[in-house]
């Protein structure tokens, strides 16, 4: 035993194991700020990742363009038709918006602020298979803060996790780490549910009833949107679709699998919600004027 304790290798391995265990316990919960080493290495990797992205776009993009030239032509014609149609609708919408504002004013409601969005590009994804995070090209200097909602035109993407001066990490809704949770509403019956990242398959989420030990009414294909109570996400954004249900004896679901409607593996441009739209007292009839 004495020999074992004085053995240098044994001592080194023991120290390493103790340090790793300490690391694991101290980093297993979401931290307010990332560590200095994490900040340094993540920032240092950005130029290399940018170069790889550029190479990927140059070679992969160019090759794909050649292969898809015919498809692009057809798509171009369709898009031009769509643009013409949407321009007509847009002018109609502007007229309606003006009228809406006039009516709100005459009724004494304040104008509803639109979500203030910051467009961002994806620089890289998490290199590990055990985490779903992205690095985006906007950071502290662009006004990003921790826990700002990140969305795409198709729905919820995630929230800002760590902010650096020119980049930020976004934790996706399907990341399985402890505490990555969103409050949701089932569109069909307005039932409140909780959406956790991870679960059955990699890339999916899990739905559980909003109250523990309680079953909920869910059906395959149900669409879940963000709930009004969320501190982070604007209300009514699509989170995903129910693709699997685990039922109890009463045929009510106690857990379900949710597939995000946003293709989280193919994100290029996404939007950070700088200012969440809230139904303030001022916007409620009879509220503060």
């Amino acid at each position, binding site marked *: 035993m004495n020999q074992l304790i004085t053995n240098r290798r044994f001592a080194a391995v023991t120290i390493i194991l103790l340090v790793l265990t300490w690391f694991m316990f101290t980093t297993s919960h979401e931290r307010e700020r990332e560590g200095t080493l994490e900040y340094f290495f993540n920032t240092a990797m950005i130029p*290399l990742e940018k170069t790889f992205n550029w190479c990927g776009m140059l070679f992969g993009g160019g090759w794909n363009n050649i292969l898809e030239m015919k498809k692009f032509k057809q798509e171009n014609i369709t898009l031009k038709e769509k643009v013409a149609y949407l321009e007509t609708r847009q002018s109609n919408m502007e007229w309606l918006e003006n009228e809406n504002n006039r009516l709100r004013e005459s009724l004494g409601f304040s104008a509803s602020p639109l979500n203030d969005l910051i467009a961002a590009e994806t620089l890289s994804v*998490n290199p590990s298979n055990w985490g779903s995070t992205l690095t985006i090209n906007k950071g502290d200097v662009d006004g990003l803060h921790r826990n700002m909602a990140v969305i795409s035109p198709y729905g919820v993407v995630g929230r800002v996790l760590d902010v650096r001066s020119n980049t930020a990490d976004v934790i996706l809704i399907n990341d399985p780490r402890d505490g990555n949770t969103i409050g949701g509403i089932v569109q069909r019956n307005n039932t409140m549910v909780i959406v956790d990242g991870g679960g059955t398959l990699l890339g999916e989420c899990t739905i559980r009833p909003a109250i523990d030990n309680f079953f909920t009414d869910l059906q395959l294909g149900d669409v879940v949107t963000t709930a009004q109570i969320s501190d982070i996400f604007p209300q009514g954004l699509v989170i995903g679709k129910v693709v699997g249900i685990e039922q109890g004896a009463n045929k009510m679901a106690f857990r379900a699998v949710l597939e995000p409607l946003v293709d989280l*593996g193919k994100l290029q441009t996404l939007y950070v919600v700088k200012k969440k739209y809230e139904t303030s007292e001022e916007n409620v009839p009879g509220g503060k004027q």
Partner: protein
Amino acid sequence: MRIVFLGALVIISLAIQATFFGVLRLPGNVTPDLVFIIVICEGLLRGSERGALFGFAAGLFGDILNGNVVGIGSLVRMLTGFIAGFFEQAVFKENFVLPIIAVFTGTIIFQSLELGLRIAFNENYRFWWVFFTGIIPLAIYNTLLAPAIYWIMMRTDSFFEERR
């Protein structure tokens, strides 16, 4: 000099995993783990001690970039490099059968261990589902890339040996 090469290899591999592989949509929603393959190859070429040390350093770097529970990847890769090192003397280094078998079985055993540890730290995974739909495909992808990586590492290993 060889340490610099290995360091550069890990950094480039992680950058490839974060960019090129990140946009691949392979079945199982997993991408090949180049660093894991490199750790196994290092163990096979240089023995348990070097394998464990390299696995620890590469895993720790990956954990720091990953930003989640720091230490799990490092512990798993350290063990992987250590066990792979037992087979250093087993066959001729030019034989590609051993690295292929080692990467396949190593991915299944040690990625399962990593998954188990992550579940222990409250990450939301369901072991058997992820084992069959995530780890088995990952083992296949890693095995397909193993010969190329082993060849690169073997050639550079002999290059540095000759220069000594």
